């Protein structure tokens, strides 16, 4: 089997998987919300409502596409794309499992292996904000504008804490390569970065909170805060443009769940079994990722929304100082040989 074909298989597998997960999330969101509220959730389309995403997709395609009067046409059309593409690009470097043999080629189960994949993920993932800002601005609606402004302020603020908690992991592992970070956590369960006492759990907590803010999810979903802003930055969007925003959001959530798994829960590593077969590793990775995806939904239907000033106060006055102190403590402990 020629090498390009192997690459193609990997690309199709991973991107197909990502889109499937995003579609499944749109169903899972409604199912989990229903379960938490003692309801049943969508169960009419297909068995247990499993075909609901397909029905939704068909509905989105047939909806009328509206461009509001006074909207900036170019940016209005560009924004959904800008919001959906970055998380899809970011998933390229996630190491889902160790080495796989496809058609005689031994290869790694990730689309690209970069030395600086951590930086790549963060840099590309940070671009998703442009879709939100431009969508909010170009709609020529005050609700959209406010949603976009809030989203941008929030994402810029929490990206700092996010980066600093990633920095702890990078310092612990001594590399920017996601695959190396995963390999570094092989072995017993205490090798996972979340158990790297005392800084690991703090970094994990900060990272998880920051991912909620980065993906504009509850309890920080000010970009689309319904009671105040109608639909936030996507108030004016309809049809597939709206669907693209949703796709972007779910893809971003998936990428963040993958990153949490990679950085803190040892990626596809199974504790005390360093050389497990790749299929088991993949299953392990996906179940960890699934837990964090579930956490997004679980938190959404549990906690009330913050107030915007509370959000900013939390980001700048609580999380950022703790994150900086955490990095300092990590550095100090590392130079003292604590993690040897």
């Amino acid at each position, binding site marked *: 089997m020629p090498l390009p074909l192997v690459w193609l298989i990997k690309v199709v597998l991973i991107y197909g998987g990502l889109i499937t997960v995003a579609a499944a999330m749109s169903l899972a969101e409604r199912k989990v919300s229903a379960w938490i509220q003692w309801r*049943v959730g969508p169960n009419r389309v297909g068995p247990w409502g499993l075909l609901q995403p397909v029905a939704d997709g068909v509905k989105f395609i047939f909806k009328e596409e509206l461009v509001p009067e006074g909207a900036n046409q170019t940016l209005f059309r560009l924004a959904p794309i800008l919001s959906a593409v970055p998380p899809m690009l970011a998933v390229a470097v996630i190491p889902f499992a160790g080495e796989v043999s496809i058609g005689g080629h031994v290869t790694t189960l990730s689309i690209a292996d970069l030395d600086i994949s951590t930086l790549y993920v963060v840099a590309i993932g940070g671009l998703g904000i442009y879709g939100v800002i431009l969508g909010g601005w170009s709609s020529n609606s005050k609700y959209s504008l406010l949603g976009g402004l809030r989203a941008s302020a929030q994402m810029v603020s929490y990206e700092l804490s996010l980066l600093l908690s990633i920095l702890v992991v990078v310092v612990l592992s001594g590399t920017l390569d996601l695959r190396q970070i995963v390999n570094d956590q092989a072995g017993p369960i205490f090798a996972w970065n979340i158990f790297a006492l005392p800084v690991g759990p703090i970094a994990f907590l900060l990272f998880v909170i920051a991912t909620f803010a980065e993906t504009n999810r509850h309890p920080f979903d000010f970009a689309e805060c319904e009671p105040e802003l109608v639909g936030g930055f996507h108030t004016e969007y309809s049809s597939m443009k709206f669907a693209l925003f949703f796709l972007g959001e779910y893809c971003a959530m998936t990428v963040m769940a993958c990153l949490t798994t990679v950085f803190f829960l040892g990626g596809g590593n199974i504790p005390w079994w360093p050389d497990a077969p790749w299929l088991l590793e993949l299953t392990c990775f996906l179940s960890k990722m699934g837990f964090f995806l579930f956490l997004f939904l679980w938190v959404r239907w*549990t*906690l009330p929304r913050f107030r915007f000033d509370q959000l900013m106060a939390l980001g700048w006055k609580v999380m950022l100082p703790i994150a900086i102190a955490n990095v300092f403590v990590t550095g100090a402990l590392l130079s003292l040989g604590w993690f040897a």
Partner: protein
Amino acid sequence: MVIIKRKELSFIEKLYLPQIFQALSHSFRAMFQPRITRQYPEEPLPTNEVTRGQPRLTLLEDGEHLACVSCGLCEAACPAYAITIDGHETERFIEREPERFEIDMLRCILCGFCEEACPKDAIFMSDELELADFSRAALVYDIDKLKRPREELQGRIDYFYQVNDRWRTPSSTS
């Protein structure tokens, strides 16, 4: 004026994390509670004789002719003007019957005044509640759609008399 002294939060309480985990466990447990959703078309609403559904016309014992004599009392009692009656004479012992009896179900408010107004036990509220069609004209029910054998409405009729008997008990003035 009441000055409320707020409780000083301890450090643990200020973290809010225990409360968050408590809330999360609460909502997680809610996922395994029994569902309260009714799967409507498969699980219909429970109805009994008290249910005041759409009005229906009763048939006589012969199962052919309506009990209605087209006196027009229900038409007059109807607050929504949903009932239209045209009567004509017959050769039978009961000399009148409706030629046309239409209830506009889009106007009907299911109040039950027709049932109370009827002197001939001809119209009763059934337990049928579902009302849907693709055109307005189809929702103006005629005699064919309205007539029911008396046995089908028997529960409601018994209940109706049971309620009305309260009024018929002799009072001190009669």
